[in-house]
């Protein structure tokens, strides 16, 4: 009996389909040569690339060598039968899906089903119907398409995951570096808990002493986690540490952070924050709370003496003009304890998922604790119990600052440098001496004016221009006449003007000695301030008394300059041999 029939053509009306080019390699394993030839010809005509094997051993060999996409296997293979070959092939294929179709005689149904169950994907019984075979193969082809697509998507996903993981690690590292830069938090009177979700934090805790001896502290909660929090943390920490070390008020620090966050992070990102200043000297605590739960001031014997409620929008939302700096103030007694926490603490949820820790429970814990020193560990215990078996959804952050009983607070060394543009102007002075080499190399005027401007915002209304004019006149006098001995009468006519400056350049190159010293002292006033400017040069000076009595109203180039200075300054005095001049320039804050 012929094992199968091989009609010359397919049934009428058959649609001819071809397998996709990427999955058209088929391994045909049958011991029957006639069938092999016939099927091979048919499959080749249908678009397949056919490999043939006549026994089990050879089948496995060819499978390993050629890695076909499909396998058609006759159960009756010699040496190793179809079933064990199917097993072997599946094992060799590993993760790759290689469909295996079994062919068997009609009376081998039991065996076929057993094999199919374990490692074959489809089956055919003899006599083989070619069009049915082709239909099954093409169906498998679709499966292979899907599988290929899935594999590609998986590879892509894996790449993305790895990239994300790398980004997350960078963010964590940056965040940790930012926080660990200063040890402001490592003080005996500060205890804190930082329990971020999944290792990357969106909460930030900062503390630093101000020159006044006050302690500044801040808790911040960024929208989201990971990269956006890390990116925001950098400038925020910089601003906090920089400004608190210089004694700015927390209102100013908050305003600056607000500006920076708004400028850097995209809209929709903000920082809920609470800043406090605890001043043992003034016995006061100031707070700015924008978006965090109530900060609680605990007093032994009294319970919660003060709560600092969020009255502001979080940082990064309002533009600078609308930003509100107002602070809450309360008395601060020795032994008080301030607690600040993010909403992750309040919302931490237990296994039953219905109840969260809650504000009330937290306050109860604080108020009912017999030993004030035991409040912090008790809250920690509560958190652990509540989050046990539950999933932590948000970063949990808690800080306790204990106001020490003694007043020997740490005062850092004085920091010279840039003061606030917005504080009331304190007194300051500067003293700069430029020797010949420096005079050659640099024009100090813009630097001086900028320096004064940075130290003291004398702002608009022409104040800065007036300062420049006065400084320029005095400095150039000192340099041109005092050191370089140039005659400024040359500047009267255009030709002379150019020659003057040529000569000036020449003389400046030539000198090896000499100096100009500029001293500026500032005193504040209710409407602005006064700048006492002194310029002293190493030259021989000029006969100032004689000069003025001679010239009177006559305006020589030199005199014109001095007349201008006289008109702008309250006082003008030439001292010594005329190589010293002292003026007082008043400035006023322009009324808007």
């Amino acid at each position: 009996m012929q094992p199968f029939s091989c009609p010359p053509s397919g049934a009428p009306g058959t649609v001819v389909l071809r397998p996709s080019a990427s999955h058209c390699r088929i391994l045909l394993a049958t011991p029957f040569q006639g069938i092999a030839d016939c099927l091979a010809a048919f499959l080749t005509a249908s678009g397949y690339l056919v490999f043939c094997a006549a026994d089990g051993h050879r089948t496995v060999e060819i499978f390993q060598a050629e890695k076909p996409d499909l396998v058609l296997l006759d159960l009756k293979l010699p040496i190793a039968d179809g079933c064990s070959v199917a097993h072997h092939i599946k094992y060799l294929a590993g993760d790759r899906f290689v469909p295996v179709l079994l062919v068997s005689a009609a009376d081998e149904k039991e065996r076929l089903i057993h094999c199919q169950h374990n490692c074959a994907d489809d089956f055919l019984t003899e006599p083989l119907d070619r069009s049915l075979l082709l239909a099954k193969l093409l169906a498998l082809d679709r499966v292979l398409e899907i599988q290929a697509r899935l594999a590609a998507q998986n590879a892509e996903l894996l790449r993305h995951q790895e990239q994300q993981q790398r980004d997350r690690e960078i963010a964590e590292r940056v965040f940790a570096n930012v926080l660990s830069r200063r040890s402001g938090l490592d003080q005996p009177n500060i205890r804190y808990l930082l329990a971020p979700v999944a290792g990357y934090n969106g909460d930030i805790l900062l503390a630093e002493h101000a020159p006044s001896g006050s302690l500044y502290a801040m808790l911040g909660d960024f929208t989201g986690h990971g990269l956006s929090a890390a990116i925001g943390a950098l400038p925020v920490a910089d601003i906090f540490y920089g400004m608190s070390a210089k004694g700015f008020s927390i209102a100013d620090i908050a305003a600056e952070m607000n500006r920076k966050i708004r400028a850097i992070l995209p809209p929709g990102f903000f920082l809920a924050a609470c800043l406090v200043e605890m001043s043992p000297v003034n016995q006061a605590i100031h707070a700015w709370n924008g978006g965090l739960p109530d900060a609680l001031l605990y007093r032994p014997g009294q319970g919660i003496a003060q709560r600092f409620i969020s009255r502001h929008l979080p940082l990064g939302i309002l533009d600078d003009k609308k930003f509100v700096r107002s602070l809450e103030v309360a008395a601060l007694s020795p032994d008080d304890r301030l607690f600040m926490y993010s909403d992750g603490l309040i919302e931490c949820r237990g296994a039953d998922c219905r109840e969260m820790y809650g504000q009330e429970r937290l306050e109860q814990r604080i108020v009912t604790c017999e030993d004030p020193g035991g409040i912090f560990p008790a809250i920690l215990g509560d958190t652990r119990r509540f989050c046990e078996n539950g999933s932590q959804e948000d970063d949990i952050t808690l800080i306790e600052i204990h106001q020490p009983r003694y007043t020997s607070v740490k005062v850092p060394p004085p920091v010279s440098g840039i003061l606030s543009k917005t504080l009331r102007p304190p007194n300051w002075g500067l003293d700069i001496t430029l020797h010949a080499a420096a005079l050659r190399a640099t024009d100090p005027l813009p630097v001086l004016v900028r320096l004064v401007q940075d130290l003291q915002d004398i702002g608009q209304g022409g104040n800065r221009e007036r300062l420049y004019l006065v400084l320029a006149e005095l400095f150039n006098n000192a340099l041109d006449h005092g050191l370089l001995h140039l005659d400024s009468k040359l500047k009267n006519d255009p030709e002379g003007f150019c020659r003057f400056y040529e000569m000036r350049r020449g003389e400046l190159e030539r000198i090896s000695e000499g100096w100009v010293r500029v001293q500026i002292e500032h005193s504040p006033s209710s409407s602005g301030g006064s700048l006492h400017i002194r310029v002293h040069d190493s030259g021989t000076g000029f006969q100032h008394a004689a000069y003025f009595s001679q010239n009177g109203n006559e305006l020589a180039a030199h005199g014109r300059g001095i007349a201008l200075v006289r008109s702008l300054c309250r006082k003008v005095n030439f001292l010594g041999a005329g190589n010293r001049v002292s003026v007082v320039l008043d400035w006023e804050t322009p009324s808007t």
Partner: protein
Amino acid sequence: MEAGQIMPVAAEISQDGRTVTIRISGRFDFSSQREFRKAYELGRGPDSSYVIDMSHTEYMDSSALGMLLLLRDFAGGDRAGVRLVHCNPQIAQILKIANFSQLFDIS
């Protein structure tokens, strides 16, 4: 829409096209981002007014607050007409702590 099927973010425009009402069901968090934006972009920016119906909103996190800020930007910033209505006590509390009543009309 089938009975019982709740779309997390559902939007509708008034007949005159001037008011967009967005209803948020369940959790209003980072996963709602794309739907929420599609919803408010149905409006004409500052020329429309927006009503966010929170009657079925169970939970809101900080990224949801961020999305509200984006909506406010889209709706004209300071000139924006955005109302948050039917807030349950938890949602109201979150909005209160964030002082969002300074930016939105909340009821």
